[in-house]
């Protein structure tokens, strides 16, 4: 182990409450789909890593809002990349275009700007969204060089035919070897770091993948920013439902994923006490 290097994460900004129209809904693969909604004029410019807390419409039962990272945001639209998990994401997949969506946002912390630095971003599954968003902006001056590695189960989950991948420097890994690097995206990250070092690692995805990346980044002495998930209720830091254990200068406490996170310095997280969501 080389060392635990730290990195500072930009904090959350006061959110707003909005209602906007679902403009487009597109199936990308068996499990993945895209929601594009109109951007309310008062919706603040979201940092990459921030999310919206969306009410599931026509639930017909009690539903907590569902958090989704922002995949893209321009003057007129906000887009989300969603994978079907359970009832909430099934309902969202069925609602017709034109439906009014009620959401709070933008919420939470963002991946930091790294002017003049090289970033290696590693996304697993739906954890792609915030890193893709960063990548589409990185052409401006967020960082000097942005390499994005995206790992999925199969070629189908790369939606190569249904999505206009508009980010440079992306490489793919599939578990079944049906496209790109054959194997785990962390193995690909290991190879990439060997080939060309990075100043910082960004990551978002399933917890086992993140844990493996923590080891990898530590062994290379590279600071690591991670986006975490947890079950949420309020989404604004009030109810203390969504906490994760952190250790800062030896003092253990809890931080909220919704307001203190979702993007954290990986070195403050107490990984072995993280809840499995």
């Amino acid at each position: 182990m080389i060392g635990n290097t730290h990195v500072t994460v930009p904090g959350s900004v006061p959110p707003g409450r909005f209602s906007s129209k679902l403009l487009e809904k597109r199936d990308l693969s068996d499990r993945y789909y895209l929601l594009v909604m109109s951007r309310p004029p008062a919706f603040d410019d979201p940092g990459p890593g921030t999310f919206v807390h969306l009410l599931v419409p026509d639930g017909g039962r009690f539903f907590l809002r569902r958090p989704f990272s922002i995949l893209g945001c321009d003057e007129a639209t906000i887009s989300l990349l969603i994978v079907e998990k359970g009832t909430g994401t099934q309902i969202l997949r069925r609602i017709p275009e034109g439906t009014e969506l009620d959401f709070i946002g933008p919420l939470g912390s963002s991946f930091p700007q790294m002017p003049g630095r090289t970033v290696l971003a590693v996304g697993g599954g739906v954890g792609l969204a915030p890193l893709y968003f960063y990548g589409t902006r990185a052409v401006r001056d967020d960082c000097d060089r942005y390499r994005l590695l995206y790992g999925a189960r199969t070629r189908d989950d790369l939606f190569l035919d249904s999505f206009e991948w508009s980010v440079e420097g992306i490489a793919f890994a599939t578990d079944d070897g049906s496209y790109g690097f054959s194997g785990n995206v962390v193995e690909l990250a290991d190879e990439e770091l060997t080939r060309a070092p990075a100043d910082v690692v960004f990551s978002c995805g399933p917890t086992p993948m993140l844990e493996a990346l923590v080891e990898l980044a530590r062994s290379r002495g590279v600071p690591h920013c991670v986006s975490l998930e947890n079950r949420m209720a309020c989404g604004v830091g009030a109810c203390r439902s969504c906490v994760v254990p952190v250790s800062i200068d030896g003092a253990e406490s809890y931080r909220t994923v919704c307001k203190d996170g979702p993007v954290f310095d990986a070195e403050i997280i107490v990984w072995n006490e993280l809840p499995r969501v």
Partner: protein
Amino acid sequence: MSEHSKTDVRVRIGPVEFKNPVFLASGICGYGEEYSPLMDIQKLGGIVTKTITPRPRKGNPPPRIHEIPTGALNSIGLENVGLDAYVAEKLPKLAKEKIDVIVSVAAEHIEEFDSIAETFAPLDGYKGVELNLSCPNVEEKALDHGRNPAFVEKLTRVVKNRLVDKAVLVKITPNVTDIGSVARAAEAGGADGISAINTVLGVDFDLATGKPVFFRGSGGYSGPGILPIALQKVWEVSRAVSIPIMGIGGISSVDDARKFFVAGASAVQIGTSLWQDLELPQRIVSEFEQHPEWMKKGEVKT
């Protein structure tokens, strides 16, 4: 409602008057600041801030929230910043924003409640306190106190003696067989009002592991599913005491709120449903302003 005068929906609890009968429940709105970008909290009757304890509490390990089709189970474990930080940082912010505050407090011993009351007695910036004798997510001992009428009476008296010009509410647990006797004890101790109910003890199991979903096992059940339980308990309390009651539990519509007044409440608190519907509290205020007659206790108008 006449066109030129705003109707009077004020509500009096002991020595204190609130501008309307709609409040946010403790544990839902944190210390107020989290929701101020999202709603006009100033326009509500007030907020009950997250329960504070003499010292900061770390709370329970996650997971802490578990959704079910009729609401949610939570296991927060009273995570809070503690008395000192609340007084130094949170209360002044709320006062600056002109939010009417009821301070929720909990402790284990009467002496601790007494010293909390002593701390608050000389302070401004709040209108009342709510003694939380009913959180199911902490040690059994504290909860047992809330079920013991003799303890409730003594503790209420100690606090009320120090806070003569504030509203002292006692929040009682539904997890008792005779809620009326606990409410009567609070009234005998000098309480200005009763808040009912806190969450209902509940548990869910993860079939993949055969274990409860929370580390602590049981949690607190809240949301639309507890409405009939809460109405029942408020109805029982209203027959046991004559002091005002804040009805809490499962309110997700204006009609739900009205039902608490029918059951005998004088005010309501909104909890879990705020997570879905941020307009609900203000909608209840507006509709009650249109129909102040809805505030008549026990009234069933057809």
